[in-house]
């Protein structure tokens, strides 16, 4: 039997990290947003990310605030295609698990099976499709399961408990706890609803739970990890790249997040 090269599968890896006492750090950046984005991806991985979320740009990102919208526009203006972002990830040699995050039309247009297989072939073991709720998940989830791509699902502050259970039963990789009602973007504070969302998820599953949407600073990340297993940090990192900070600033920021979580 041959052992597949590339990063480990997302959920076992995150569970093992958690069992070892680590808090989980999942930075997000937009694929192809800058010329040197692959170096930024590598820097983020090297600075202590447990997994990296890579955005595939879409023309109409309705879950995203101004920073990630701007990153999408830049990527598309640079001629980014889903195919190219996936190829870039494959060529990056990054050894932590990567999850792509994109909108459903990108997946639908490519075809469920074709998208799942190209992710898998590129060593990308997970996907987040935020405009694909439980009721519409079927065809994608089937194709993703068949290709061993984990579909991460979101639970929102507005999700009632019975629905949380059904979502958690279908979620793979980790469960994404949406910290607040709203779109992505940096915020002054962690949402007041965060603890309750995480609590409802905990009651339904023992899978890793990461908090995202609005987590912007090392101290917010640490606070989120007092209740959850980890955090997703997007806009705060993407903004640094939009401002021209490059791989170095990205790595430095992720390093500070890592330190904050390790001090815990």
């Amino acid at each position, binding site marked *: 039997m041959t052992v597949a090269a590339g990063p480990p599968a997302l959920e076992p890896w995150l569970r093992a990290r958690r069992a070892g006492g680590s808090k989980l750090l999942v930075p997000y950046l937009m694929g192809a947003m800058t010329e040197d984005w692959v170096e930024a991806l590598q820097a983020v991985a090297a600075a202590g990310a447990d997994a990296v979320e890579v955005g595939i740009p879409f023309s*109409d990102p309705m879950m995203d605030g101004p920073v990630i919208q701007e990153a999408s526009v830049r990527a598309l203006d640079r001629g980014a295609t889903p195919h190219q972002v996936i190829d870039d990830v494959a060529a990056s040699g990054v050894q932590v698990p990567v999850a792509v995050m994109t909108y459903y*039309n990108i997946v639908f247009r490519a075809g469920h099976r074709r998208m799942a297989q190209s992710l898998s072939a590129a060593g990308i073991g997970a996907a987040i499709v935020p405009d694909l709720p439980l009721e519409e998940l079927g065809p994608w989830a089937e194709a993703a399961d068949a290709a061993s791509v984990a579909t991460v699902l979101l639970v929102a502050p507005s999700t009632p408990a019975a629905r949380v259970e059904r979502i958690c039963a279908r979620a793979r990789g980790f469960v994404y706890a949406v910290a607040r009602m709203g*779109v992505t973007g940096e915020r002054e504070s962690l949402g007041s609803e965060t603890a309750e969302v995480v609590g409802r998820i905990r009651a339904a599953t023992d899978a890793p739970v990461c908090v995202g949407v609005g987590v912007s600073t090392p101290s917010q990340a640490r606070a989120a990890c007092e209740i959850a297993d980890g955090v997703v940090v997007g806009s705060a990192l993407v903004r640094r790249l939009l401002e021209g900070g490059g791989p170095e600033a990205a790595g430095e920021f992720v390093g500070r997040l890592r330190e904050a979580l390790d001090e815990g």
Partner: protein
Amino acid sequence: MGPPGADGRFGEFGGRFVPESLVPACQELERAFSDAWADPEYRAKLDAILRDYGGRPTPVTECFRLSERLGVRVLLKREDLVHAGSHKLNNVVGQALLTQRMGKRRMVAETGAGQHGVAAATAAALLGLECTVYMGELDTERQELNVFRMELLGAQVRPVRSGSRTLKDAVNEALRDWVATVGHTHYCLGSVMGPHPFPYMVRELQRVVGDEARAQCRVLLDGRDPDVVVACVGGGSNAAGTFAGFVETAARLVGVEAAGGAAATNGIPGVLHGMRSLLLQDEAGQILEAESISAGLDYPGIGPEHASLGASGRAAYESATDDEVLAAFQLMAETEGILPALEPAHAIAWVVREAGRSVPEGSSVLVTLSGRGDKDVAQVRDLLATGRPPR
């Protein structure tokens, strides 16, 4: 045209593709509308407002001079005579009453030409609701007066600077607002699009157009139905409301899109703004920008029920060019003394083109005149002055 399937599908189109945060709100709306629609008290309140405030029923007008000119009998369903100037009022009054019924105090709306925004602001003022309207920056420039109109009505207008700065981007921004405010805010969507139950709900709220017109046509046509029923299609609400009254008849149903935004003709199945439908998009699935002189038809998709009616062949979808539309606008003004909005001028343009061709001489044609053209007068003046209509 009945209710969609349990999953909000019309054939393969429709559905509910929204972030988890919005799923409970869509479910709540589905229940609330279904309750309200079955509640005689809600229906009576809605009918009374549309009658005493909105001016319903609107007449069907026979166009004698235009008919003579074209050789076909042209009847107009006069939604231009509804208060606030278009069919949009039918929808917003229904949704504003629903907003109250759900215990919410604020509405957000998107708008293209500004007609839906004006209608939403009107209904909000009437019922004492807060109202925020998102409008593409390009459209705020094209429809300056409508922006001021909305502000006079007490609404807050927020120009949208992302993307193509037109209708589709205004929808994105309204959805982003709604995610953050859904506890006290209702998204008053302006057409038969978006996630379930919007396409169904908006069609039901607009079916008054078709139901009235069918009865009125029978009187005018000695008990017969029109041979052809035509309406313009942006998202498709005036067309859906019109078709709902005639889908059971033998009438040929035609929806007319702007040639620069003809999603029914050139679209490919995809998912945008919560629905699966036909969309203008590239090979990777990026949504393309529609381009038309009429801000209200500048949308790269159509409502899912239209995609389904097109697929089954029950309705046909065609398009009219900017030049044809300008000519039809002038023809209607000169022969009938009616300034149509640029949107329904597309439907008229199609009749002008097809009369004596695919619409045989002597046929009867009902056209829904979805709105009045006052909002477009300055733009038409500029277009005519420069000879040709670039945006």
